[in-house]
């Protein structure tokens, strides 16, 4: 298990959830697994954070949920992105990109550029 976990910036968790659910409908356990795998263990979401976030997004109409039987025969609640959720995902992804580029530019700045 990787030791260097990073705290997620405020509001980022929602974006990450929207992103992975946007790839395919998933249940809560799979979302946590997926986030951990993709981030190579850096993002480790506690259930106490994940589920309230999922319910909040559902209440805001960005996600919708459906109970389905899975391949293993388990009855699970699957979350899917709504049209509104997709819009939100695109908007937030764009703004995230702008922000990280800006932050990157500033962090890469050399003494010359600043002059």
């Amino acid at each position, binding site marked *: 298990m990787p030791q260097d976990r990073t705290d997620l910036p405020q509001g980022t968790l929602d974006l990450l959830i929207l992103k992975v659910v946007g790839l395919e409908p998933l249940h*809560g356990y799979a979302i946590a697994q997926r986030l951990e795998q993709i981030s190579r263990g850096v993002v480790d979401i506690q259930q106490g954070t994940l589920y309230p976030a999922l319910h909040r997004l559902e209440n805001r109409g960005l996600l919708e949920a459906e109970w389905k039987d899975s391949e293993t025969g388990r009855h699970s609640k699957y979350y899917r992105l709504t049209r509104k959720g997709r819009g939100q995902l695109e908007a937030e992804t764009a703004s995230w990109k702008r922000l990280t580029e800006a932050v990157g530019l500033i962090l890469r700045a050399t003494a010359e550029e600043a002059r």
Partner: protein
Amino acid sequence: MSWWTRLRQRDRLETELSAELADHIERQVADLVASGVPEGEARRRANLAQGPDKTAEACRDARGTRWLEELGADLRYGWRGLRQRPAFAAVAVLSLALGIGANTALFSIMDSLIRRSLPVRDPESLVMLDGGSWTNPIWEQIRERQHELFEGAAAWGEAEFDLAQGGEARPVQGLWVSGGFFDVFGVPALIGRTILPSDDVRGGGPGGPVVMVSARFWQAQLGSAPDVVGRTLMLDRKPFTIVGVTPPEFFGPEVGVRFDVAVPISAEPVVDAPRNALDHRSWWWLEIHARLKPGQTIEQATQALRAVQPQIRVATLPDRQTPEDLAAYLRDGFQLVPSATGPSALRDRYRLPLLTILAVAGMVLLVACANIANLQLARASERRREFGMRRALGASRLRIARQLLTESLLISALGAGLGLLFARWGSRLLVQRLSSRGNVSLDLPLDAPMLLFTAAVAVATALLFGILPALRAGRSDPQDAVKAQGRGSTDGGKGVSGPLIVAQVALSLVLVVAAGLFLRTLSAITHRNFGFDPEGVLVVSLDAGRSGLPGERLSSFFEQIRDEVAGVPGVAGVGASDVTPVSGSSWQERIEADGRPAPPEPVRAFCHAITPGWLSVYGTRRISGRDFDAADRDGAQPVALVNQAFVRKVFGGENPIGQTIRFMGRPEPQPPIEVVGVVEDAIYRTVREEPTPTAYFPFAQVMVGEIPPYSSLSVRAKSGPPSALAPDIAAAIARVDKNVSLRFRPLADQVGGALVRERLVAILSGFFGALALVLAAIGLFGMTSHAVARRRGEIGVRMALGADASKVVRLMLGRVVLLMGLGVLVGAAISLWASRFVSTLLYGLTPRDPITLAGAAAVLIAVGILAAYLPARRAARIDPAEVLREG
């Protein structure tokens, strides 16, 4: 999903939540088992990762409905708490219902009487000519100039018409209106058309006399007939053509009076012939309103009117006036005042009484709040363990305070709901009681201002009595949960707030003092010597205006009627007069005695024209001289009787018999009138008046020439209620002339009607004073009971150590007596200060009447000590052995 749906589907969401979280654990366990962890260990780890209920709780928070669920839980819990304490619940809810209800009822009356505008177009630009009523010649002068001066002007006068064809009258409330009245006020016709300027012309309009009826009259008397326009309505036995119906919300131009029919001013001679008020320069019967031009201020309009005042005044000089009076008439400047809320005699008469009762009701509500706050505080100290336990389990201070506030809101909401019902009933009853003859009418809709007021009062009271217990409970210490029950603690009254008790006692004293002042006022008036005996006398008002008799024959006509009525079985005596006491009518004259130095102030005396026998019907005693007799007729020596106040004022207390007096202030020479007798003082216009100079003249001598066709017969019954004589009297009068219009009213009713205001204030303040006493008793009882319960252990120990019963009682009463003493002092100070505002409502005592104050304090203290003594005596019965065994 809206929060409302989420709230309603709470159970389904809960099931899904558990299933979802269980699913998570199962999947994790499966993964762990697959990676080689034994199942038991896997399950332990998975459960640990989720945390006991932490995740579920966070998810519930995310639903956003928690506050509502908690509110629901608090309400349910509060409701259960109330049901477990039915006595407290009843006292709290009922006292609040009475307090809130009374305030709401008075608010709704005050609102419609004082604040609400007339239901007309743009009431803010309506103004009226200040200074009472005006003559028709003045109105006609203003009417001619109305469009130069204002956008328009209108006049109206009150009237009463008779729908009956003779015999006992069927009165309807009428309105004389100018032709432009409905246009200027901006009131459209509901059906048909309004009265127009073309209807209001001398001699009648093209269609003859017309009438507009109110929506209420149309519904009640005409069965809402759709074809009502064009029908004939008989008013005072004259035909009027109905041209339209006014809208239901328009009650008329005066708040508190509701009209049934409106007829043009110019139709006055139609019903009043052979008289005619239109050209009369001394009959003041019209109110004059104007609508301002856009942008015109009331000052500009007054200035414009003042500019033409000299012409108006000169053209309308009153008849039969002395030069000084005429000069004053010419000088008197016109003044316009706003009339968005319309004039209202009812408002003028009841503003102070209603404000007084509102203040009383407000204080009752405060007393009720103090009472509930104290009961809640006592209760909260009993609940210390409960609150401590909840704190220990993680409830925040705010959460506990909120729970208590919710309980308070529940109590006040229950009180307000009940109070609203009470207010609806009470305000209607109150308005009915404002009128002595059912002629008072006020709209009291259940409207937004009233509901808002009730809600605001409910929230305010909940905060008032709930904030202190909530703060206290919020401060509770988790350690309280583990401490032993409060046994043995010595802070006897800590549950109850001393200042609250002082405030409650003080306000209660003010209320009891107010009740005492008003009840004593009512008693003083009803027990004063009226100068006559109102019981057993029936007043019969006659209107012979439609008999077609010329004025000079009316006097003998009335005498003929009197003689006929005297023959009715059961009649002990009968007399005729122009006016009767406290009837609303009066006749005043300036009178001087011949051969005496003129007094600095001319004496204005009340006058009566009476037939022989009238005084004995009333039971007014003759002090000296003789009564009138049949020989005192027109053409004989004019004579008069005077009362004792007249003798003091005009004759300086000397024997007036044989002296002569004269009417003053008339341009033509007046004959000397010989005083032939002196009678005792009697009230004339109001039940409160001091003895006033009064002169009596023979009906047959005074009622000649231009005399009003209405007079009254006063009939004394031999026994039983005098109104039982009415049918026989009506039949007797019909034998003389069946066209005479009659109204019957017992004299006792007439006098009682003049006491409506006093009786109303006395009854209401008495009721609220008694309520305050009961609440004070409950408060003190509760406080002492609580102290006894808390100090059981201490009392047991004291008694075991030798304290006797009386010492224990004294111990328990000590604080109560101290707080009550402080409260009485504060209350007495407030009473002494506040009573000045009601001095005009009092009679026969001063606002700072010491007997009332001392009596009220004594009653309050007695009730308070008794209320505290009952539980204190219980303390003395504590068995020390039992208490010690408990320890």
